[in-house]
């Protein structure tokens, strides 16, 4: 009997395709937005986590500028870092395993007819292990090159691909801005990218070469330090702060004019933002499900009025109140399940499209998908009940007389 009722409800819904579709649009929008948002949200969370993991563990970053303004905040009015700060950190704080300077600028790399904009970093050999890089071709810098500031460089796979295509770039000479630079090494390709930019698109050269020939000063934009497993970031950070304050000649009443970031903190902050955003958008989606439910109720009420005579006929033939109620309730549930089904498809599609547009992993959450589907059925029951009860309570004679 119930299967029969479902079959009849499907037929009724199919008879009015356009109207049924418009009725379930609210549910479709609600369900698909929940699913799309959760999918993209989870993908980006996963991305942030893998980005941070790729930065290596026990990593802190020292930058000039006031703390609390995020990376790069207030850099202009703060004195820059120097290569000597790196030496001082390593000698004064025994907990540190490595410290490496970085000065960066975006410049055009030119090889043959190809011009390619790329991030150029001046640093030393410690940069490679600290940032988790290995080489697939060639070598790192020699002591001689580092000391003399020889224009040699190690490049990433994306840069290599852009300049020479497939093949080994070691040995070629290219132009970086105004200088000529020989490629001595190729980084191993890695999957992660740091917060959206492609990690593999990079040119690395000795710090001195960068400072003298490109920047024209002896500034360092950031210092990355790694510390030993025996201590925590919370223990190391104050030591770095104290040393830097001393080196920068800050008195007790002056604020820090540099900041020390724990990359893991940034990760949890970004994850938090993603979570809040997902929550907020899910609330919007829930409201749209509610509106969808009201849409179903509205159409079911119209349907009950339109089919009053049919209800009268069914009652005369022997349908009980429960059977009429069931008929309309099942119809509402079938409608909202169809809406839920379309919503799941559309939502997964949107989630997939969004994930590929944002260049993040497509992570469908089957629990949420199932829950959204079930919830759409619940919407059908809740909002279908009132119209169905109205149908069931009709007086058979009045209903039969209805034109």
């Amino acid at each position: 009997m119930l299967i029969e009722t479902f079959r009849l409800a499907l037929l009724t819904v199919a008879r009015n395709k356009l109207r049924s579709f418009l009725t379930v649009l609210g549910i479709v929008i609600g369900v698909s937005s929940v699913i799309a948002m959760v999918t993209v949200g989870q993908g980006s969370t996963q991305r942030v986590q893998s980005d941070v993991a790729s930065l290596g563990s026990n990593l802190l970053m020292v930058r000039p500028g006031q703390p609390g303004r995020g990376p790069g905040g207030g850099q202009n009015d703060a004195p820059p870092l120097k290569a000597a700060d790196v030496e001082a950190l390593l000698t004064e704080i025994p907990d540190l395993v490595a410290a490496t300077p970085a000065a960066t600028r975006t410049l055009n790399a030119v090889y043959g007819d190809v011009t390619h904009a790329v991030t150029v970093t001046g640093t030393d050999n410690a940069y490679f292990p600290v940032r988790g890089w290995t080489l697939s071709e060639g070598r790192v810098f020699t002591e001689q090159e580092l000391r003399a500031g020889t224009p040699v460089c190690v490049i990433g796979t994306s840069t290599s691909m852009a300049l020479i295509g497939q093949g080994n770039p070691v040995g070629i000479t290219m132009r970086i801005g105004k200088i000529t630079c020989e490629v001595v090494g190729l980084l191993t390709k890695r999957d992660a990218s740091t917060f959206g930019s492609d990690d593999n698109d990079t040119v690395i050269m000795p710090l001195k070469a960068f400072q003298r020939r490109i920047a024209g000063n002896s500034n360092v934009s950031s210092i990355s330090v790694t510390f030993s497993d025996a201590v925590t970031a919370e223990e190391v950070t104050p030591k770095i702060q104290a040393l830097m304050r001393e080196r920068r000649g800050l008195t007790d009443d002056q604020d820090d004019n540099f900041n020390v970031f724990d990359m893991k903190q940034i990760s949890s902050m970004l994850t938090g933002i993603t979570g809040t955003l997902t929550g907020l958008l899910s609330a919007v989606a829930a409201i749209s499900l509610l509106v969808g439910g009201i849409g179903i109720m509205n159409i079911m009420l119209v349907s009950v009025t339109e089919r009053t005579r049919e209800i009268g006929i069914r009652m005369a033939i022997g349908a009980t109140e429960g059977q009429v109620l069931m008929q309309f309730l099942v119809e509402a549930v079938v409608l909202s399940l169809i809406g839920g089904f379309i919503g799941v498809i559309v939502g997964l599609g949107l989630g997939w499209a969004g994930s590929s547009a944002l260049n993040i992993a497509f992570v469908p959450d089957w629990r949420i998908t199932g829950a959204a589907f079930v919830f759409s059925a619940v919407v059908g029951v809740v909002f279908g009940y009132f119209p169905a009860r109205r149908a069931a309570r009709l007086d058979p004679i009045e209903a039969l007389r209805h034109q």
Partner: protein
Amino acid sequence: MIELRGITKSYGTGEAMVRALDGVDFSVDRGDFIAVMGPSGSGKSTTMNIIGCLDTPSSGQYLLMGQEVGGLDRDQRALLRRNFLGFIFQGFNLLPRTTALENVELPLVYQGVPQDERRERALAALGKVGLADRAGHKPSELSGGQQQRVAIARAIVTRPQLILADEPTGNLDSARSREIMLLLQQLNRDEGMTVLMVTHEPDMAAYATRVATFVDGRLQSDIRQDAH
């Protein structure tokens, strides 16, 4: 089979009160083919609706096959309709956009008859009214006479004890009306179904074995006759 004792039915209250039935005593015996006649507004349909368990009297007693109907709730009355009664209406009242076969199957759906048996019995009923070849047609694709025959098939598919027909030929021409009357007469004679039929036309009443005449909400006369 049916006993009405002192049945009254009024609509509205106070000044606006209408007494549709004003103390009707009436009985139907098994095998009767009764034509109910009388002027418009005399209470024929009201009586039929009460007998059909669609409506309840304001006062009086109604016994259907020995059972007091007055104390029954809506669902119990629905079950009586489902299992013992078959309705034929002036306006045919078939479900639109639904095939003849599905219309005839509907009462069996509510009885919970399995699909195969349902189909078989519905086709047999359509055969009895001469419409086996129109099973797949929708009401909009059938003539008025054919629609009424589908409605009759739907009324008899459950093999009810009593068929209630309120002006079944009211919307049909005389040739079509005669076909319907012959069909009802045959169901009455050959299948042993009791038939209670409201009509305004003496020609149609001539097919009945009893003619009951209502005037002003009362049963004025109740005469047995030799059917046509």
